């Protein structure tokens, strides 16, 4: 029964099942203590969705005056003028989505590379330190990222990265990389977000990859796969749904991030196809204006913007879950 993969016990004879499991406990919940315990736990469990619902309606209600006044124009107009009490959040919606997409495009391959290296190639003694350091990226306060962005990333983007993309790679011919390189921009915010989302994607992917049964790797190797073919053909497909879960987590992180984005996105309420242009994100819009919101309608518009962000997050998550579900369909693992 002992599989060589698992360091086997000393036994050289006798192959009965391993030690007895933990003493069986009643799960029926027949005693009073059990019932109380059950009730309390259920209450706790219900608290979270209730909180979510409460938040949803509270924010929705607060934003209602603005939503009613501007209708769909609130979503599609790019006119944000607190003085004339005109409010449309299209640039912030676009900015939010664009920065998150840029972040995922940059972070996903990097994070996967790190995860694959740690799970498959790194010598055992190196695994923990690398994993620890990558996870540490998640522990850095976002304002520190923001400062780093202002003082280090923005100058690099302005002097090197943006000219390189636009002129050297001739991407300036496309609308996405055209225009002057100020530094603070949607692209810069995306890069910061990529660094911030990376540890989430990478640590989830790493755990999922490490959890792929050894038998799957061995099956591929025994069929004559090289190490890389085994990873590509057996390990990654097995881990696919979990990896997507990690990407969703990273996306969630990117969509809601406020501080670091506010510090490097440029905070300009304009629609532009170019990633080089300064932009806005919903979260930074709220953070910037909330304290000085003058009129009731302005406040309500900010609440409505928050509500929109809420709904975007829900929709994105629903789509992502649907994707996972589609992929997992009929592909439940054997183990």
């Amino acid at each position: 029964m002992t599989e060589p993969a698992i360091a086997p016990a000393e036994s050289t004879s006798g192959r009965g099942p391993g030690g007895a499991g933990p003493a069986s406990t009643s799960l029926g919940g027949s005693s009073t203590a059990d019932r109380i315990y059950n009730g309390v736990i259920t209450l706790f469990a219900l608290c979270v969705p209730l909180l979510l619902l409460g938040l949803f309606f509270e924010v929705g209600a607060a934003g209602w005056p603005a939503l009613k006044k501007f209708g769909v124009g609130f979503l599609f107009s790019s006119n944000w003028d607190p003085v004339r009490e005109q409010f449309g959040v299209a640039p912030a919606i676009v900015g939010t989505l664009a920065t998150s997409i840029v972040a995922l495009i940059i972070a996903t391959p990097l994070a996967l590379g790190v995860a694959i290296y740690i799970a498959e190639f790194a010598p055992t003694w190196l695994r923990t330190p690398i994993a620890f350091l990558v996870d540490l990226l998640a522990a850095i306060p976002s304002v520190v990222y923001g400062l780093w962005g202002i003082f280090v990333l923005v100058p690099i983007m302005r002097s090197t990265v943006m000219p390189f993309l636009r002129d050297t790679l001739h991407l300036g011919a496309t609308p996405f990389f055209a225009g002057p390189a100020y530094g603070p921009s949607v692209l810069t915010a995306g890069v910061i977000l990529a660094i911030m989302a990376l540890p989430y994607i990478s640590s989830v992917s790493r755990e999922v990859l490490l959890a792929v049964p050894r038998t799957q790797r061995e099956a591929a190797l025994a069929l004559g796969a090289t190490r890389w073919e085994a990873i590509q053909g057996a390990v990654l497909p097995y881990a696919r749904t979990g990896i997507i879960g990690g990407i969703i987590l990273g996306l969630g992180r990117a969509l809601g991030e406020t501080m670091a984005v506010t510090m490097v996105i440029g905070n300009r309420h304009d629609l532009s196809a170019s990633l080089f242009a300064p932009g806005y994100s919903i979260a930074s819009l709220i953070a910037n204006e909330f304290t000085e919101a003058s009129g009731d309608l302005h406040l309500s518009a900010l609440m409505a913007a928050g509500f929109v962000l809420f709904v975007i997050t829900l929709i994105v998550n629903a789509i992502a879950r649907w994707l996972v579900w589609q992929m997992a369909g009929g592909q439940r693992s054997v183990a």
Partner: protein
Amino acid sequence: MTDVMALPAPAVVPLDPGTGCIEARAFSFWYGEKQALFEIDLELPKRAVTAFIGPSGCGKSTFLRSINRMNETIPGTRKTGDILLDAEDIYDARTDVVGLRQRVGMVFQKWNPFPKSIYDNVAFGPRINGERHKATLDEIVERSLRRAALWDEVKDRMRESATGLSGGQQQRLCIARTLANDPEVILLDEPCSALDPIATQKIEELLVELKRELTIVIVTHNLQQAARVSDRTAFFFLGRLIEYAPTEQLFTSPQQERTEAYVTGRFG
């Protein structure tokens, strides 16, 4: 340890010369500091089934996994001695491990199909060999499934996930997946230990069928199974080869006391 050292020399009934397909010469194997195999000398005949028997932990799997060099994927292992496949040293520095594993297929104790479709499972080996031609792949898949006696059961559900099959079907799928590489040798490590008697019987029949073309090595704890399917049987004990003889002889008139004790069920 001293007890082991004092074991008498293994009783090995020699094969006809020239029929050896796999040959181990003084093969020893270590997991870190722990020696798992001691100087195994063994010649496995072509186109026959050889069974490895012995109590748990005696090194059967270790030896089996040395024949396709799967064990070297475990860090900290080393070996001495040689294993030859058709007179070529498989541990030679010039040996292409990937090619070796295509020639020497392996089926594991716990069936391990990939969570992909039945078709993609069987086509895995040919695809990593660079076969892209759809019609050729179709043909290989069908032929392999037929050889594994699974075709009739799955021919209408090639695109369905392999993990939806029964345990016995999954194990035969793993055999088909191995056959798709057109190997010369198949190594099976307790392939039936988790299967019911009917599924087991199907696999045993399959092995008897396959041995007309292939060299088969099977590790089993089921002595009846060894007796039913194998031509020759090797008895391992504490990392040593104790006795190796035609199956009938090993079961009816074992030369070594330990073999006799094991096959008559007095220990193990």
